[in-house]
């Protein structure tokens, strides 16, 4: 397992446990949890809260004959086979690979930076980003929340270093210029629940075009 220094905030893990995040954020959480047993244990704790909520839920009476119908149905239910776990590879954990296998189109967004949109529905979007070593991400601020999970290489955001498994959470107030470390290409999974605002002229023109 990877040594993670920058973890997901509680609100996002709780949202994932509760099942209320947009799909693109779910993808970042599922990928992050695949890389960190600490995150998996924290998620388990938030799911235990859900267990308590359901245990204390006001019971709603089941329809009459419900149990009988259920019992009659049991014999017809095939035993679910233990799924052969879908394995990730050295860079991309399984939940992410699952999305990538449905077609990945890399587009150049300038300065050697490439991105590929992952198809998700709902109010957020997800994309993979590849930044050459030593290169800066295009300067951008945000509306809403942006999550950036590192899969390979590392980047600096201010004086904080983000490496494989780390998540950078940027909010409305954040104006930042993440800079990939010299050396290996930095690959990240990013999700945002509002379009990014780029400040340079070219990226701004490209933005509606590339859906970022």
């Amino acid at each position, binding site marked *: *397992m990877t040594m993670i220094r920058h973890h997901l*905030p*509680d*609100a996002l893990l*709780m*949202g994932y*446990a*509760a*099942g*209320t*995040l947009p*799909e693109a*954020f*779910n993808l970042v959480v*599922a*990928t992050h*949890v*695949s890389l960190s*047993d*600490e995150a*998996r*244990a924290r998620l*388990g*704790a938030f*799911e*235990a*809260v*859900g*267990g*308590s*909520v*359901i*245990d*204390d*839920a006001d*019971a*709603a*009476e*089941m*329809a009459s004959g*419900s*149990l009988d*119908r*259920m*019992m009659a149905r*049991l014999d017809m*239910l*095939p035993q*679910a086979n*233990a*799924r052969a*776990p*879908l*394995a990730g590879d050295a860079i991309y*954990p*399984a*939940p*992410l690979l699952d999305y990538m296998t449905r077609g990945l189109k890399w587009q150049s967004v300038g300065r050697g930076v490439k991105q590929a949109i992952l198809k998700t529905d*709902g109010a957020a979007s997800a994309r993979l980003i590849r930044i050459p070593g030593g290169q800066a991400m295009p300067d951008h601020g945000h509306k809403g*929340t942006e999550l950036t999970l590192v899969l390979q290489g590392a980047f600096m955001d201010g004086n904080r270093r983000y490496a494989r498994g780390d998540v950078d959470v940027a909010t409305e107030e954040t104006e930042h210029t993440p800079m990939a470390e010299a050396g290996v290409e930095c690959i990240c999974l990013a999700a945002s629940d509002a379009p990014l605002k780029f400040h340079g002229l070219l990226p701004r023109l490209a933005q509606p075009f590339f859906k970022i």
Partner: protein
Amino acid sequence: MAIGDEEVDWAALVLRVRDHQDRAAFAVLFRHFAPRVKGFLMKSGAGDTLAEECAQDVMATLWQKAHLFDPTRASVATWVFTIARNRRIDALRKARRPEPEDLPWGPEPEPDQDAAMALQEDTMRLGKALAQLPEKQRALIERAYYGDLSHSEIAEETGLPLGTIKSRIRLALDRLRHHMS
């Protein structure tokens, strides 16, 4: 004499379903959990008919996936909650839900009894701590799980006492990794 719910060993019943397709054990689980799942789904915005149907499906999934239940990592209520949550996403939002990579099972087919017992006790303590939270805070947490709050509306500091149960699950994961290597 009726047995108080707190004294029922739910995990043992799921293991009976897993090992013997024990229908009587399943019926006990159904009577306890199905109405709660239905209540949970109705609080989440499902109508009576849909909630009834989904609660049945959740219990069917419990029957079919009993072999995937790990009592060292989750209580039965927690496991049922995750099944109900996924069913709700499927039914109400018709959305896909990416799941974390599965952890393969270690070579030991039997979960560690002591670890399972400790997890159940920690879960019970968590439930009691939740019940003792100030009413306003507890209501907010419930609303988050019923799907009434977006992640940006969830407080950054939840004030939930999750350290103990998190450490317990972490230990179970470490054991699993140890067996795998």
